[in-house]
Each structure stands twice: as C-alpha cells, then as structure tokens.
C-alpha cells in the first residue's frame, strides 16, 4: 500500500471513529441541536453585549466581532478535540494503549479525531456568519481576488489549528487528570490573546504583543481583511494580505517543527514512564 493511501486510510478511520464518538449517543436531530446550541449561545452573548452598549447601532465593529468569534470556535474546538482525545481515550474508554500498539500513527489518528470536530465547527461557524448576514445586516466588503485568498487562508489557518492541537495533545500524554483543565483554559487564553472578540492592542504592554506570535491571530485578522476589507489589530492594519499569508506560513512552519519534535518526545517519555495506559480520573 502506498504511503499516501495508507495515510488517507488511517485518517479516514480515525475521523470515522471521532465522528461516531461525537454523534452516536443520540438521534441526528438532537445531535444537530446540541452541536449548534453551545457555539450559537456564545455568539449571541457577544452580540447582545455589543447591541446593549452600542444601543442597537451597527457599526464596522460587529462584523469583525462575528467573524472573530466564528473563527475562534475552530481554535477552541479543534484544540479541545485533539487534546481531549488523549484524556478521553486513555482515562474513560481505556483504548489509547490499543491505538498506540496498532499500526496507526498517533499523529494521523489525532488529525482524524480533530477533523471530526473541525467539520462540526464548520457548520456552527457558517450558521453564525449567515445569521449575522441575514438578521444583523452584516455586509461583506471583500478585497479584490478574495475568492483566491479565502480558500488559501482558510486552509493555511486550519493547518495552524491542528499544529496547536498537537502541542496540547503532547502535553496531555505527560500529565494526568489536570489535562482536562489545561485544555479548557487553553481555549480561554486563546480567546484573550488572539484578538478574536477585541483587538489585541486592548491589553497593555507585553500582553498586547503576545498575540502577534500566535498563528491564529494572523489567521483571524487575515480572514477579516479578506472578507471585510480590513482587520482590527493595529500591527496588521497596514500589512498586505500577501505579507500576512507569508507570515502565517512562516509561523506555521516554525511551530510545526517545534511541536512535531515535542509531540514525538512526549510520546517517547509517556511510553518510558508507563503513562500511555494510566488512569487518574476515577
């Protein structure tokens, strides 16, 4: 079997498993409602906060907020999906050890599981944006050639989600039940530092600059620029979309190299210390 064919097969199997775990506990309609309730509620909380303070006036900030929040859902869910897989399969289903000894690479396995979350998030994000478009009069003012940049930026940004997901999955191989807290708080920290719901400059000093070095910040602001004509973080405001794309690719490559090494190191240490089948959550 060719390497690519095997990769695709492994990916497909782990995606299918992830999809079944996510969805097979109920009927499709209930699952659909359940999948949408959480992200839509979070989005509506932000929209209400915005509407109350702006006294119902719409200005250019609302579309930025809606797009930022819709894209942050990807960060939160893919990151959580991949990192939580380690805890879930190790602690609750107790299947991580079997996956480890199977011919499937853990790297591909987690990609597949993360992709199941990615697909579900795509539906939620799409609905949030459509809702904004229909009911809140959000209008896109895209840049020229947006149809070329949009899929490229979406793809490169999506890659960055998986890279960060591997980082937290790698950490979860090494720690016990605290992984659950770490994964949830990581999503919260990303919400604060990536400028998803307010510009990163709102934070003073060092905190306001950290976001520049997080790929998701460039991704979210780049997508705003593509769809709305401009971003809202001062660092990227005068930057061309090509430059932002180059920056995102460079950050992705750097993060990938570091995280790939870290992930393999974590797996090695976890095996040496007998952590692959540890059970610490009751």
């Amino acid at each position, binding site marked *: 079997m060719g390497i690519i064919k095997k990769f695709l097969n492994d990916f497909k199997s782990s995606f299918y498993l992830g999809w079944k775990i996510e969805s097979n506990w*109920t009927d499709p309609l209930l699952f659909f409602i359940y999948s949408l*309730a959480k992200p839509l509620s979070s989005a509506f909380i932000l929209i209400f906060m*915005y509407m109350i*303070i702006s006294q119902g006036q719409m200005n250019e900030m609302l579309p930025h907020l809606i797009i930022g929040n819709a894209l942050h859902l990807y960060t939160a869910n893919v990151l959580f999906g991949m990192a939580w897989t380690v805890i879930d399969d190790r602690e609750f289903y107790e299947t991580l050890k079997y996956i480890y000894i199977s011919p499937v690479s853990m790297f591909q396995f987690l990609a597949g599981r993360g992709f199941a979350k990615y697909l579900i998030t795509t539906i939620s994000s799409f609905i949030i944006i459509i809702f904004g478009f229909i009911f809140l009069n959000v209008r896109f003012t895209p840049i020229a050639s947006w149809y070329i940049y949009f899929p490229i930026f979406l793809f490169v940004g999506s890659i960055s989600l998986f890279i960060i997901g591997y980082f937290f999955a790698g950490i979860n191989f090494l720690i016990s039940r605290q992984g659950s807290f770490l994964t*949830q708080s990581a999503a*919260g*920290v990303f919400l*604060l530092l990536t400028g998803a719901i307010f510009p990163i400059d709102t934070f003073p000093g060092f905190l306001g600059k950290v976001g520049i070095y997080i790929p998701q910040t460039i991704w979210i602001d780049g997508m705003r620029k593509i769809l709305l004509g401009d971003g809202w973080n001062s660092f990227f405001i005068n930057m061309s979309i090509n430059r932002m794309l180059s920056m995102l690719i460079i950050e992705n490559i750097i993060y990938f190299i570091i995280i790939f090494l870290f992930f393999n190191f974590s797996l090695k240490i976890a095996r040496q210390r007998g952590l692959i089948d540890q059970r610490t959550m009751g």
Partner: protein
Amino acid sequence: MNKEYIIRNLKAILGRAYPRVIAANREYSWIIADIILPLLSVIAYGTLYKFLGASKDFLGFAVLGGAMSAFWLNVLWDMASQLYWEKMSGNLQLYILSPISLVSILLGMSIGGMLATSLRAAATLIVGTFIFKLDFSLINITQLLLVFFLTLAALYGLGMMLASLYLIWGREAWHLSEFFQEPVYLVSGMYFPVKFLGKVGFFSSLIPLTVGLDGLRQLLFKEGATFGFLSVNIEILILIILTVIYALLAIYYLKKMEYLARKEGKLTIRWE
C-alpha cells in the same frame, strides 16, 4: 420518623458534604480550574465591554455573572450529573442499600457544593474586582443576603431535581451538562442584564440564576436598578416559590427514579 433515623440522616448529610469541601480542596488542579476557567471568561467579556466603551458597572455585571457561573457549573457537573457518576462508580447501589434517605445524600452534596463553590466564586469576584477596578455601591445588605441565599437554595433544589432526571436519561448526562452550559448563560443574562432579552426573561426566570443574578446586580451596582428586570422584592418572592417547587419536585423525581431503576434493574448497569 424516629430520632435515630433523623440523626443517621444528619450524619449522612455531613458525610456527603465532607468530600465536597475537604476532599475537593486536596486536588489543587481542581481549585485552580474552578477559579481560572470562569475568570478567563470574565476577563474576556470584561475586556470586550471595556473595548466597547461600556460603563464600569457593566464590567461589574460581567464579573458578578462570571462568579455566579461557578455555582451553575457546580450544579450541572457536581449535582445534576452526580447520581449518574455514582452509578458508574458503583456507589449508587450502596446509597440505596444503606439505611438513609437519598434526599440526605443530595442535601449533603448541595451543602458541600455550595460551601466549596462559594470560596471559588469569591476568588473570581475578588480577582475580577481587582483587575477591572470595580466600584460597588451596596444598596441593602439584608436583601442582598436574602437574594444570594435564596438563589443558592433554589439553584441547588433544581440541581437535586436534575440529578434524578439525569439518572433516568442515562448516558446522555455528560452531553446534557454540556448542553445546559452556554445556552443558560445566554438566557439567564449571565454577562448582560436579562432585561434586554425582553419576554424571554420571563421564561428564563424558571432558572433561579436569572432572577438571583438580576437581584444581586440591582443591590450591588449604581446602575443595577436602571437595568433591573423586576423589582427586588418580586424577585425574592419568585426565588422563594422556586425553592419550594424545586425541593418538592426533587423529592418526587428521586422516588420515581428509584422506583424505575429498581423495576428495570438498572441500578448497577454502567454505560447506559
């Protein structure tokens, strides 16, 4: 009901409250998680308000909402889901076999949960106040205490009722808790005054947090009354009614659940 039975049940309440307060504090990562997770949302929503140019009282609304969200999370994950977890770990059958009422077990969990969560909610409130330099203007301390304790009583009554329902609903418990998180934050006006939800606010008043939080905001912030949903006295009355209703429903469903579980032989079955 003899004296010995009452003493036994009081001991059961204390016994079940103990791990909620003492054992929960032995796992430091849980303490940090319980404080940090709501705090991250509080900082995010507070910063958004700040960015939008809202008054300081709105920042206070978000901080108070974040602090109170700890109670909702506790009710969902440590009350409503608890009997299901107990079944999974094999404790439920022991509770039913023992010569005590299941109500005492749930009451013990509630008291312990309230105490432990109060510490965490206070931490969120203190850190949030410090970060956003909030100004409180206490209107009436008696009403404030009344609203706070009635909110907790009604909320944990709801939790006791949900505990039985979750057990009947089975393995969907985890998903149900997830499902009831953010949507309840939205309809109860956790981060903004519920007044702005219009008529939805009347339906969401069935969740004690909605009226409780609104009352607390009115009694703690200068602009609270301006954005109040109902008058504080009416909210106190609603909370009293909810406390009684949820307590009665909790007892009813507990008996029903126990009967159904015995009849269908599901008390010892895991993963269902």
